[in-house]
């Protein structure tokens, strides 16, 4: 792995967290504790609030109640969260490389070159292709490259395995394992089995 730089070690802790859309609560009374260097898999049926929980953790939605604390986050160091939702933010008329360059520009580039990141996710040969021509799985791979070019200690991934082929899922598991090994933290909403070290599982919606 070329990405040798020291990351902040961040622990995620929530206390009595309730999240939802508007005034409708979806997941309530969540007290999570995810230490640096580990992952949390979110499971549960469709519509149970996995995506909403990830958006709330990312600070994109206000929690209905409770608190979210990222211990060890340096406020001077800029944003420390990557959030990957259902929408890939891939636009036609930009090439794959231009798209990745734009993401690196706005998120702050790391020390991994763009071409290396594309090679790593298996898109090296499509660098100059219009991003609109990518297949759904290739778009997801491009999103994974976004995580690589701007190192951040917290990854919040919403069904990252969707549309990926078997090799893509292996790649995802490898990237996650690397991330965790370097002291990163990941919360992943998924319906797949991802074999990862240091993983806890939270199943939403089975307490009703």
């Amino acid at each position: 792995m070329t990405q040798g730089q020291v990351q902040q070690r961040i622990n995620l802790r929530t206390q009595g967290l309730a999240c939802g859309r508007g005034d409708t609560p979806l997941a309530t009374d969540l007290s999570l504790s995810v230490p640096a260097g580990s992952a949390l898999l979110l499971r549960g049926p469709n519509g149970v609030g996995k995506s909403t929980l990830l958006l709330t953790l990312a600070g994109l939605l206000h929690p209905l109640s409770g608190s979210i604390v990222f211990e060890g986050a340096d406020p001077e160091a800029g944003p420390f969260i990557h959030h990957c939702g259902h929408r890939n933010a891939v636009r036609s008329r930009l090439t794959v490389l231009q798209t990745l360059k734009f993401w690196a520009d706005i998120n702050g580039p790391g020390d991994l070159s763009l071409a290396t990141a594309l090679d790593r996710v298996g898109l090296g040969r499509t660098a100059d292709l219009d991003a609109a021509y990518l297949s759904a799985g290739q778009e997801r791979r491009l999103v994974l490259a976004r995580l690589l070019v701007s190192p951040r200690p917290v990854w919040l991934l919403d069904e990252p395995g969707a549309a990926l082929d078997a090799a893509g899922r292996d790649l995802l598991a490898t990237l996650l394992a690397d991330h965790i090994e370097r002291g990163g933290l990941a919360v992943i909403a998924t319906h797949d089995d991802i074999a990862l070290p240091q993983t806890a599982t939270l199943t939403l919606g089975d307490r009703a």
Partner: protein
Amino acid sequence: MSGFLGVLRRELRLSFAGGGEVLTLVLFFIIVGAIVPFAIGPDRALLASIAPGIIWIAAFLAMLLGLDRLFRPDREDGTLVLYRLADMSMASVVAAKVIAHWLTTALPLIIASPFLAMILAMDGPTFARTVVSLLLGTPALAAFGAFGAAITVAIRRGGLLAPILIAPLCVPVLIFGVGAIAPLGGPDQASSAMLFLAALSLMALALSPFAAALAIDWGEE
């Protein structure tokens, strides 16, 4: 700073790569201006006297037309979420977008304005003043437009709402813009109108990125 340039580069690429959008706005601008002589008749003196107003109205309408693509596509494809987690403030994202919006809508209109000047029988000095007043005034239209687009971005099908919201804000720009071209009481008033126009643009450019950033952050929740 690299983020600011990154947003600017992306916006310019998206506008010019397809090519069609910029050309459409320019054609719209010319057609609005070209229709007027048909509507009011071929009286050259009358046309020349109302030409500054027509050019300003055409520019105003053409710029309103481009508003909806300022933030809405970004919201729909998820880029807006990325911006909120990006290592740059939303205000600088908006500032980059305002600059790109001006470069891709206002500047092509100004470059195309000689066509309208010809159709509307403007004389040379008036046309020169028109170009200066458009250069000074359109940044304010771009800034107000970004503000309106930011307020309405969270509303589904809010595309037509932004022009209605910002039209009152743009009235002073039109008043001073036309006043700077066609002085009613002597050249002195024209130059002070020009100064007012510049002041409006500076103020709008300085304030709108922050107002629009606030509107986007609130609208997303």
